[in-house]
């Protein structure tokens, strides 16, 4: 049977009770059944290539294509690849990594010109069968297990915004302003969006809603909530589908956080909830529908917000979105009906307690979803463990307050640059534990380099402002 899996299970279930070994057998048998399902489907549907997908630490999707003949071996032993060429995987003494496909994620890709291409997400192991600390999917699995140990399942409903531009050149050219598609009476991008949604639905990624966003050429597709691991996989797929459809129409789609100076950036609003079996743990009758536990979760998010911002907003450009005058939040407070709040508790439909949720609004569409979900969950659970009190709701306009007034209410500003965010991150034991040492250290090193490169850059702003007068 599959040796890697067995080794992993031996590690995970070392405490040798009969329950544990029963679980091992069940998990093993399940994996065998699921792999059989995939192998049979590959044969019947005449699949020619199976793409094995995984994600690097910065959230870029990586893919290795294998032929059906190699698939059985991939299930049994995993596929060995050189990890040193993957960002955040490299360690000098252990370059070899093993990717094991997760058969539950097998899907035939709907947009290939030629039929017969499918994909599976992979979990990454070291050659001795240990889950690899640098694999973002494993980081999220580890954090989800923490929630499961407390009896909770973590659900996420993501809204992702993006822009369509005419090409990938350095000057963004919008499609629906400036005459690029002057002759078209309809919003042509609507057609691309519809096609994207079609593909997503065929990939088993249900779409909740979609619309043209505030900024020109900006769109949003909201996905239905699901368990956090599935949603992280879905977000990776979603970003690829959006770009793939754009490519087919000869345009460029981007999740860059803030491509247009005068318009809103692209957010990645996350609707978070914890379920305890069938019960939404954030719901409580009366008290405006929000449970004490939901309040503690929010308190945890607000408490750790500055430290986890480097993860939810990981690029130099991310901080151009978190500025005054646009929809993105810049202050850490919560409210029910205040679009500038970092955390919102959306009004739920009457009689639908199950939809009680917490919306976290600062992340941007270019975050690594596995790591972002990990740190948000860890922050919320910390609020629950420490039984933190929910700070008062802030209904008034925070931008009009003096800094003294904000300080009195305990409202802190989110970090203003990547560098500030990294300073905050570096101090956080919680985020270090949530990401694991390997990812935490690599991330800080890598992002410090990015910041330093940016600091060396003389911008157009400086040239235009200073050159004529100084």
């Amino acid at each position, binding site marked *: 049977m599959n040796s890697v899996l067995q080794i992993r299970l031996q590690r995970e279930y070392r405490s040798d009770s009969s329950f544990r070994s029963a*679980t091992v057998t*069940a*998990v093993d048998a*399940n994996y065998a*059944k*699921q792999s059989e*399902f*995939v192998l*049979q*489907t590959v044969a*019947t*549907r*005449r699949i*020619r290539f199976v793409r094995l997908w995984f994600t690097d630490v910065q959230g870029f999707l990586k893919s290795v294509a294998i032929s059906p003949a190699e698939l059985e071996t991939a299930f049994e032993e995993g596929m060995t690849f050189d990890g040193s060429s993957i960002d955040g995987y490299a360690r000098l003494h252990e370059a070899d990594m093993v990717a094991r496909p997760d*058969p*539950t*994620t*097998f*899907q*035939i890709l709907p947009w290939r010109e030629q*039929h*017969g291409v499918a994909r599976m997400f992979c979990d990454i192991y070291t050659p001795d069968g240990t889950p690899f600390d640098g694999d973002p999917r494993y980081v999220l699995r580890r954090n989800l297990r923490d929630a*499961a140990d407390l009896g909770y*399942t973590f*659900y996420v409903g993501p809204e992702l915004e993006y822009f369509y531009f005419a090409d990938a050149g350095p000057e963004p050219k919008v499609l629906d302003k400036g005459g690029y598609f002057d002759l078209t009476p309809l919003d042509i991008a609507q057609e691309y969006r519809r096609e994207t949604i079609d593909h997503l*639905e*065929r990939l*088993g990624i*249900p779409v909740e809603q979609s619309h043209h966003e505030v900024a020109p050429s900006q769109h949003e597709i909201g996905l*239905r*909530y*699901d*368990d956090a691991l*599935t949603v992280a996989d879905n977000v990776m797929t979603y970003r690829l589908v959006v770009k793939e459809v754009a490519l087919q129409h000869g345009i460029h789609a981007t999740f860059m956080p803030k491509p247009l100076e005068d318009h809103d950036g692209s957010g990645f609003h996350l609707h978070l909830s914890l*379920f*305890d*079996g*069938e019960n939404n743990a954030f719901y409580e009758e009366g008290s405006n529908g929000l449970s004490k536990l939901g309040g503690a979760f929010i308190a945890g998010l607000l408490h750790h917000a500055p430290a986890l911002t480097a993860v939810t907003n990981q690029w130099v450009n991310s901080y151009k979105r978190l500025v005054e005058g646009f929809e993105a939040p810049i202050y850490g407070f919560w409210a029910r009906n205040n679009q500038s709040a970092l955390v919102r508790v959306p009004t739920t439909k009457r009689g639908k307690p*199950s939809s009680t949720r917490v919306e976290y609004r600062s992340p941007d569409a270019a975050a690594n979803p596995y790591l972002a979900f990990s740190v948000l969950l860890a922050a919320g659970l910390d609020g629950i463990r420490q039984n933190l009190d929910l700070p008062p709701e802030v209904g008034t306009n925070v931008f009009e307050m003096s800094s003294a007034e904000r300080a009195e209410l305990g409202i802190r500003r989110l970090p203003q640059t990547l560098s500030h965010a990294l300073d905050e991150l570096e101090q956080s034991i919680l985020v270090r534990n949530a990401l694991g040492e390997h990812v935490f250290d690599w991330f800080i090193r890598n992002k410090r380099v990015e910041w330093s490169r940016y600091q060396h850059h003389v911008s157009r702003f400086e040239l235009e402002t200073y050159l004529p007068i100084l």
Partner: protein
Amino acid sequence: MKTAVIALYPPEPSAHLEEAIALSGVSVDLVGEEELEKVEALSPMSLLIIELGDQPLRRLRILRRIAEDSMIPILVVAVPDHIAALESERAITDFIVEPLSPSELRTRIGRLVSERGGGDVLAHRDLQLNTATYQASVAGSPVDLTYMEYELLRFFLENPGRVWSREQLLAKVWGYEYFGGARTVDVHVRRLRSKLGEERSAWITTIRSVGYRFG
């Protein structure tokens, strides 16, 4: 031999294929090119036999197109000159080379029909689920399911008309080792409905504060 409906193209088979078919005791339906264009026309068929004849490239093109939209097994009748061209032709399930032997033809057809699961098909209206190949189809077109979507649909098809709570579905479909929580059921039902398509999504009814019913 199992009762199987077999489509044969072109509708005027060569004399020796006609003879081999007659001797093998298999009954076939002759289909024209227009019918081949329609997935629905092929969906009740268990097998498609295509004779490459004197137009091998043209007919290979046709069968490639069929293989894109349909899961029907395709048996090709070839002459020795065609064999090299078949080497990497994934759209073909099997081939047989002339001169034809009626018993070989019969055996190959029999294998293809039974391999492709013949009897293990669950159905509801125009939805079919083949539990031997794990393949689902709606009106003859394949529907790509993940493993858990397949398992849930199979459970529904095997137990129609009854209301199941989320907890029951979790226990019966996901099994005890799953720790994902009952919301998972809602999510999978939503995915299934979406893949079945709008007009069929109502086959799975939500029974408020109880669970789901299929059919």
